[in-house]
């Protein structure tokens, strides 16, 4: 469709998508055609533009949510793949939680882990014991930290999140594990 638009613009035929946004949902197989008007207040192409040259786009796009917490706060609650391997190898009774979603669990998982998807994490919390030593992991280490904070809010204390997630684990600890 983008290609057709290019060709129409070059040859000068048909009606292009200038002034329209076409939305496509391939699961419902539906198309929506939304009118987009020129914004007279647009910083770039409006009536009194304030942007007169290219800017720093990384800075422009790196605006964070005010609630986002700095990453260094998290480091104390992280454990590396090799460290986690050592813990698991001792054979002591620890709880290992995989907070990814079921379709990811189907692809790969760490032995001894139990599936507690972040999307339903609250429902698993009452089943966990605050006295236990709990390790959490996800794909890259972000969701497991979110889950860890939820457990902290419920008074859990012995918590670690696997830094780099199962993807880092596959790379550093278990090279035979399939990656995605």
């Amino acid at each position, binding site marked *: *469709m*983008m*290609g057709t*638009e*290019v*060709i129409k*613009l*070059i*040859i*000068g*035929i*048909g009606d*292009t*998508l*200038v*002034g*329209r*946004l*076409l*939305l*496509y*949902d*391939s*699961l419902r197989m539906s198309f929506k055609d939304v009118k*987009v*008007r*020129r*914004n007279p207040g*647009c*910083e*770039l*192409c*409006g009536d009194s533009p304030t*942007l007169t*040259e*290219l*800017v*720093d*786009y*990384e800075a*422009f*796009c*790196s*605006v*964070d*949510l005010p609630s*986002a917490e700095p990453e260094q706060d998290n480091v104390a609650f992280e454990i590396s793949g090799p460290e986690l391997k050592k813990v698991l190898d001792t054979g002591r009774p620890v709880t290992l939680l995989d907070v990814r979603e079921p379709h990811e669990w189907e692809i790969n998982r760490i032995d001894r882990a139990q599936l507690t998807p972040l999307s339903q994490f609250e429902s698993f919390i009452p089943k966990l014991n605050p006295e236990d030593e709990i390790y959490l992991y996800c794909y890259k280490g972000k969701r497991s930290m979110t889950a860890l904070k939820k457990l902290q809010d419920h008074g859990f204390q012995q918590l670690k999140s696997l830094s780099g997630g199962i993807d880092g684990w596959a790379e550093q600890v278990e090279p035979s594990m399939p990656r*995605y």
Partner: protein
Amino acid sequence: MESKLSSDEIQRYSRHLVLPEVGMAGQEKLKAAKVLLIGAGGLGSPLGLYLGAAGVGTLGIMDDDVVDVTNLQRQVAHSTPNVGRPKVDSMRERIEEINPEVKVETYDVRLSRDNAPEIFAKYDIVVDGSDNFETRYLVNDAAFFAGIPLVYGSIFRFEGQISVFDPKRGGPCYRCLYSNPPPAALVPN
């Protein structure tokens, strides 16, 4: 009658030439056109192949990435033996195989505010097949300053959106639609 198309080209594009909306005049416009593709990934792959096959005379391809095995399931310009090679090289070879009449210019660099003005000045149309907001805003602004239309598309999972931004013809730009990027924490990586 003198034609800007060779006999070989007339034969190659005959299924275009018999369409009254295209014809010889349209095909000659395609041959004279210079189109810049930003990104040789999921969107850029089919675009490059289709535009090259259709006879766009000059195709610029910009991407600083190399082919990864996880790209192959959707980035159809790249093939298994090309894993590890620059995407622009992989795509240039594929387009030249399909249509040797096309002049392919490759840019194995990331688009930046420094290189954008000079590169955009060489093209009539830019097509954004990038996968991040920094590049999308940069492409929009650079296209505006260069005075060329921008064909925009983006995909997330099963949903896509397409538009053409052409403020020079009275249309809106990407910033008219989205004046600010989403907060970084909400951007899927």
